[in-house]
């Protein structure tokens, strides 16, 4: 393989595999060193080291912000039986008992069924926000809406997944309306949709790090000159 092609391949790797790091300046520095007489083997070694360091940083820094929300979501979901015991009956009583015709009656039943779970998830989300004041300071109403919406979607999808996992012959939304759906016969696994739902809400409102992706092709003349 020609030296120019090797350098081009190394640059491509650097630009695509150093996630989120400032490869514009780093790449320029390595090219400057290459121009001043370094070998393409040195160049490759530096590129591989930069990719390795970037991957390590990515894993280390990427895992840290999500550790607390994950632990909180898991811990909060474990409180659901207590919530169900304390608040579910009050919640059901709070919903006006209008007699409506089918199919609207189904919506009413579903609302009564999933209402305690949704309020539990949103309460957990609110508690997390109150505990993490710095997150609130960067929170916009759009992000809040995204978080609440994501939690509903995740709760719905994971609940359907749970129904499938539990081996129901058909996916019937009616199962959700059963009083014991979120409590008794599958207590160990029911915390998964709840925890996933809380985590989804929190994930959407966590501050994001900025990335500045920028790529520029090297000219063939430059590569030929380097080779």
């Amino acid at each position, binding site marked *: 393989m020609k030296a120019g092609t090797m350098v081009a391949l190394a*640059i491509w790797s650097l630009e695509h595999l150093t996630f989120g*790091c*400032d490869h*514009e*300046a*780093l*790449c*320029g*520095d*390595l*090219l*400057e*060193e290459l*121009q*001043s007489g370094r070998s393409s083997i040195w160049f490759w*070694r*530096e590129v591989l*080291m*930069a*990719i*390795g*360091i*970037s991957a390590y*940083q990515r894993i280390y820094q990427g895992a840290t912000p999500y550790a607390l929300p994950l632990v909180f979501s898991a811990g909060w979901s474990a409180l659901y039986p207590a919530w169900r015991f304390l608040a579910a009956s009050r919640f059901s009583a709070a919903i006006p008992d209008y007699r409506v015709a089918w199919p609207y009656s189904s919506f009413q039943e579903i609302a009564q069924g999933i209402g305690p779970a949704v309020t539990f998830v949103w309460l957990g989300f609110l508690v997390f926000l109150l505990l993490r004041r710095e997150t609130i300071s960067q929170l916009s109403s759009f992000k809040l809406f995204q978080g609440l919406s994501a939690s509903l979607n995740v709760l719905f999808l994971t609940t359907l997944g749970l129904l499938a996992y539990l081996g129901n012959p058909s996916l019937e939304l009616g199962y959700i309306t059963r009083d014991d759906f979120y409590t008794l016969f599958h207590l160990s696994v029911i915390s998964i949709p709840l925890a996933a739902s809380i985590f989804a809400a929190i994930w959407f409102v966590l501050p994001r790090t900025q990335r500045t992706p920028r790529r*520029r092709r*090297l000219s063939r003349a*430059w590569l030929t000159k380097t080779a």
Partner: protein
Amino acid sequence: MAEHSYLGEFELMILLTILRLGDEAYGVPLSRELSLSRGRRVSVGSVYAALDRLESKGLIASSLGEATPERGGRAKRYFRLTEQGLRSIHETRSVLSKLWKSLPTPEELA
């Protein structure tokens, strides 16, 4: 007691090298100077990792410079110390100086 974050060896060396290089503090001269000071090879990637860390702590600031042909049209990223960075160096120096005072000489150990 006030909270301090004292600098590690490599971080301190980078900050002092930025000070020494002045307006010419960007990746290439930084890694060259550090290699000379330490007496062993320092990869540009590890220098950038430390620089990113220092910048996120607010100890240094960076700005993009000119893009030159020998860099394949890539801009240089210049670094400079912030006031907080300089204060941090002095604090680290003060702590280390106190600790150095208790270092016995080889004659005292013998």
